[in-house]
């Protein structure tokens, strides 16, 4: 997959990296079980702090898309593709709701009411 960092972008480097990774998983460019390149190598090539990259990995791990195992590298989880699409849509939904003037508490309650 292509990792790209734009220091002139209005999005933070963390958001850029997490977004690209999420998209690559949702579109199947990164298959379940696939191992990501070593974080240090990637950070070196992108000229970013390795902690920024690891934080992006951590975000996706919390979303259930990545499995981070110490010493064994980072892999894409089995159910990741559908999960990634869902996370993407949830993000869109939240952004839309905020634009419509809803507070975070209202969004939470709305989603909860649907469960």
């Amino acid at each position, binding site marked *: *997959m292509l*990792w*790209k960092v734009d220091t*002139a972008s209005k999005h933070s480097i963390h958001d850029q990296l997490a977004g690209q990774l999420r998209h690559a998983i949702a579109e199947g460019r990164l298959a379940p079980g696939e191992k990501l390149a070593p974080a240090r190598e990637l950070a*070196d*090539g992108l000229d970013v702090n390795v902690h920024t990259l690891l934080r992006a990995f951590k975000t996706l791990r919390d979303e259930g898309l990545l499995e981070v195992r110490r010493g064994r590298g980072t892999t894409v989880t089995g159910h990741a593709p559908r999960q990634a699409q869902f996370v993407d849509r949830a993000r869109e939904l939240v952004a839309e709701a905020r634009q419509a003037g809803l507070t975070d508490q209202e969004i939470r309650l709305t989603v909860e009411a649907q469960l």
Partner: protein
Amino acid sequence: MNDQTQDPTSSDVSTMSRWRARFWLGVGLPTAILAVGYIPFVLLRSELPDRLATHFDGAGRADDSMAVGSFLGVTGAMVGVGLALCVWLARSRRPVPVGVGSTVGFLGPFVAALAGGIVATTAVSQRGIDNWTDAPNAWWSLIVAVVAALLAGIAGARCGSHLGVPGSGRDAVDTPVMDLSDAEQAVWTTSLRSTPLHLLGLSCAIVGVVLFAAATPWLGVGVLVSAVPLSALATVRVRVDRTGLGVSYGWLPWPRTAVSVERIEAASIIDVRPMEWGGWGYRGSLKVMNQAAVVHRAGPGIRLDLTNGKVFVVTVDEPATGVALLNAQIQRRVIAG
């Protein structure tokens, strides 16, 4: 793209001389090597038994034999097949890829030295005995023959690689360039897994363990050892970043192949045909030959034309992004001066 297509008349001459040189290397030289191997045999013919010991058991006792005529016939046929292959590979009068040149250069001298070595060492070790069952343990003869064959083959491959045109295999399909602003930095990673190679490595490991446990420990270890490069080469990871292109193999931390951006003249997408690059696996060498190729299958790949005229090829799925990024990095380097 290919600057090998210069003046047609001058390239015709060099193509003809390369064609002749390939024949000398693939057929003439092996015939000479074989003749040298037969000299001790002819000289010692009267001292040899009617049947020659051709196989030895684990304890070094001869357990199979062949009549002298069939012995020469078998070794001759072995060389014949090798030379026929050489003729078939070298027959093209057009410029051939380096892979073909080095395969011809390896194959001919290798089979000739192997057969010649076996014939010569058999004659030397079995002279003066009355019956083939008295043949002394000649384990060294196989080692001598194999080492001689490998040396002859490697030397031949080195010469042969100069008799092909680097990267004449296939024209580049495309050479895209990615838009990359000064504020942007990008890395492209991909991996390619060869299922046949993976299975081969796995079966070697299983056969090795079974052989080790069952009967012939040494053969088992040998087969087991061969499983290591097979299973490691089964997965190849390729990375393109501002430093250039890097290839790493399976779970092995070493060796890795790195081609720095400074050494790359241009990157392009090509359609890889394994035989034009010398077959499957890691073929050729950037140090001692004019080209190297990491070939896992037929199909798309990345081709790097290096500033020193050499060519590096690696097969990957969807090479367009990687090639475009490499070309962007090359442009950036050129602009930076």
